[in-house]
């Protein structure tokens, strides 16, 4: 029996949003004095528990605003849980909206080092993998051009190449294939499949049902922050269509 690589227990994420956006100090003080600082509590994730075993390929399914991205951010450690815990046993590499963390003034080559450092890679490691990253990103001479001049597809390719070079224990993929051409999509899917074979655990979010069914072996369904279903993908998608049809 494989051990749980991620276990999520009674997780809730609450956002406390002021009803009016107050971002200047004067307004804030006035509202405190008048006791008019109202907050609207909003549960992005509402008391969910599940666990992921090593080698699982979990598809997270749900409509827009169901809490999918929030869940991934908590697992990636970017966002803090309001209640409950997330336990991780291994190196988590997040691929959230690829390439958005690049330094625009920097060239592709410089960004490989900077982005790599942010992901916690060492200099020696990046030196060793540098060529592999450049080859995979397939940017040619553009590697020495500032990233601000890249197309969004090029940025995605570079981001994907940097992130996947580590062979992480847990890979988080959020709408990764929304950009990028067919050739890149094919290439990155192949790379992800290679990782499966090496036993990586993957958490995958996409609105492309075919792709989820092709890549994943298990699914969870979120709706308004609640966990509705957990298990076989056909079953999960069955429930998903049931919910969306009801709204129609």
């Amino acid at each position, binding site marked *: 029996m494989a051990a749980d690589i991620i276990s999520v227990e009674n997780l809730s994420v609450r956002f406390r949003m002021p009803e009016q956006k107050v971002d200047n100090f004067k307004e804030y003080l006035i509202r405190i004095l008048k006791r008019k600082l109202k907050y609207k509590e909003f549960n992005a994730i509402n008391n969910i528990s599940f666990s992921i075993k090593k080698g699982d390929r979990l598809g997270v399914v749900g409509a827009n605003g169901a809490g999918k991205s929030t869940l991934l951010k908590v697992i990636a450690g970017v966002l803090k849980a309001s209640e409950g815990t997330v336990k991780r046993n291994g190196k988590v590499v997040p691929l959230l*909206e690829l390439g958005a963390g690049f330094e625009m003034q920097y060239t592709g080559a410089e960004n490989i080092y900077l982005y790599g450092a*942010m992901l916690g890679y060492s200099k020696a490691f990046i030196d060793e993998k540098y060529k592999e990253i450049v080859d995979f990103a397939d940017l040619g001479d553009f590697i020495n051009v500032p990233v601000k001049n890249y197309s969004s597809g090029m940025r995605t390719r570079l981001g994907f190449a940097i992130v996947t070079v580590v062979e992480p224990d847990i890979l988080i993929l959020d709408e990764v294939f929304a950009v990028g051409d067919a050739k890149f999509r094919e290439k990155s899917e192949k790379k992800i499949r290679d990782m499966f074979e090496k036993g990586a655990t993957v958490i995958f979010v996409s609105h492309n049902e075919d792709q989820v069914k092709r890549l994943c072996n298990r699914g969870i369904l979120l709706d308004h922050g609640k966990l509705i279903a957990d298990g076989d993908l056909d079953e999960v998608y069955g429930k998903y269509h049931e919910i969306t049809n009801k709204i129609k």
Partner: protein
Amino acid sequence: MFKTFKKYQYLLYELVKKDIKLKYRNSYLGVIWTLLEPLLTMLVLVAVFSRLLGKTTTDYAVYVLSGRLIYSFFSNGTKAGLKSVRSHAAMIKKVYVPKYMYTLSCVSSGYIMFLISLIVLVAVALVRGVYPNVYTLLAVIPLATVYVMTLGLGLILATLDVFFRDFEYLWGIALMLIMYMSGIFYEVADVASEKTIWLFKLNPLYAVIENFRNAVFGVAPNMEATWFSLGFSGVVLLIGLFVFYRKQDDFILHL
């Protein structure tokens, strides 16, 4: 905490390198500006003020330059620290990195450039016949306290700025006040009366500048100013760390 710092040591290096590299990218003289800028500013200040206010008992050029170098590090460092979290918003939303890294790197890159610019001070001092002696070694104290103070304030300001954008403007005005209270291009004794001198003595940056000047001119240190600057910078750093750690999990909701 120490373990994570070790893990992200390389990131700190990369972030500092990024700041320094980007600052002078697309300029012909590049990093030479670090030396040229304070030198030219000094010339302007000397030209404008030497008749008017330059009744210093010591060499005016060295006097102005030593004060201005400290002040401009403090001013640039706190401003960079203030913006450090917000300017890295895109990264903070994507990858988990200890967030103090961004503030630490912004202040540190400014500090490195400040240390490089001290070469100008050494050169000007030698040209003007101000030679080092034993007391000059004590320059380490003001150089360390100004870093700690700037980092502490940077952490506080970075936290405040995430929630209230006003602090960017408020701090700009505060900095102007601090500048005039630091005796950069005049001697405090010339402008302050018995009644107002306490205002200058309460300014921790003035204490740092005074300590630094005493070291540069090779004069025995003013113990009162030394202890005040040490105490103040320590307390400010502790407050900064405390505030930053208390609030850092909320940053992402406001960026």
